[in-house]
């Protein structure tokens, strides 16, 4: 197994763990944690491809990962703001208890 394949396997495992967390947990914050894990797994892929790709001096994968980190930070801020608003509105963060779209 090459180093690139090793990193890609770790990223795939981390992505699946995040997906399982996002799909199985009840708490909305845990769902956001799962989404963060998936985003990080994608970043690991980008950096690994940059490192073992043919032209690392072009910095393409590295830049993609850096911008992805910035966008993920914005996503986390808005997502957690939504969870706090939801908690104030429905007095719970249990996603199974939220079964209507009406306020």
């Amino acid at each position, binding site marked *: *197994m*090459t*180093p690139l*394949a*090793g*990193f*890609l*396997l*770790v990223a*795939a*495992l*981390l*992505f*699946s*763990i*995040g*997906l*399982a*967390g996002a*799909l*199985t*947990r*009840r*708490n909305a*914050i*845990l769902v*956001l*944690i*799962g989404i*963060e*894990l998936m985003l*990080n797994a994608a*970043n*690991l892929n980008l*950096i690994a491809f*940059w*490192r073992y790709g043919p032209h*690392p001096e072009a*910095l393409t994968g*590295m*830049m993609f990962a*850096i*911008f992805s*980190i*910035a*966008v*993920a*930070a*914005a996503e*986390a*801020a*808005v997502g*957690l*703001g*939504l*969870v*706090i608003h939801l908690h104030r509105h429905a007095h719970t*963060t249990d*996603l*199974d208890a939220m079964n209507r779209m009406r306020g």
Partner: protein
Amino acid sequence: MSFVFYILAALTVAGGLAAILLKNTVHCALALTVAFAGLALLFLELDAQFAGFAQILVYIGAVAILVVFAILLTKGSETPKGSVYSRHSFAGLVIAAAVFAMLGWAVIHSVAAVPRGPAATPSVTVLDIGNALMSRYVLPLEIVALLLTAALIGAVIIAMHEKERAK
């Protein structure tokens, strides 16, 4: 594959697993920090110094703290009495396992798994990254700045107390 890689991979995967398996939400946030730190070390192992330190600053310094704040503001710090998994958790597990099987199969059977000569260590300094950000990637940089401002204002507006509307 070096010994360091296996240790870091095990640390990251264990942190990720603990982050979604533990019952107490605060413990989950702490395990998430471990996973982020493992990822930052994996970035450093890949000779991506800037991305590694940006990961530490942004994820451990900001996102993990934000998650802890959100947990405490939503009174989620107590361990829940009932099940922490949703009603459809079995379907979710099956989907996640299927996704991992497909991704793993694709990685193992791809050209990336064929051994080649060792790749030369890229000599990329922070100066190169700064030059690239200010020349070739200056438009994405400005857009990200705009996005971060919009997200900041949007998050504050969403989480702000609603004013009592005129009845």
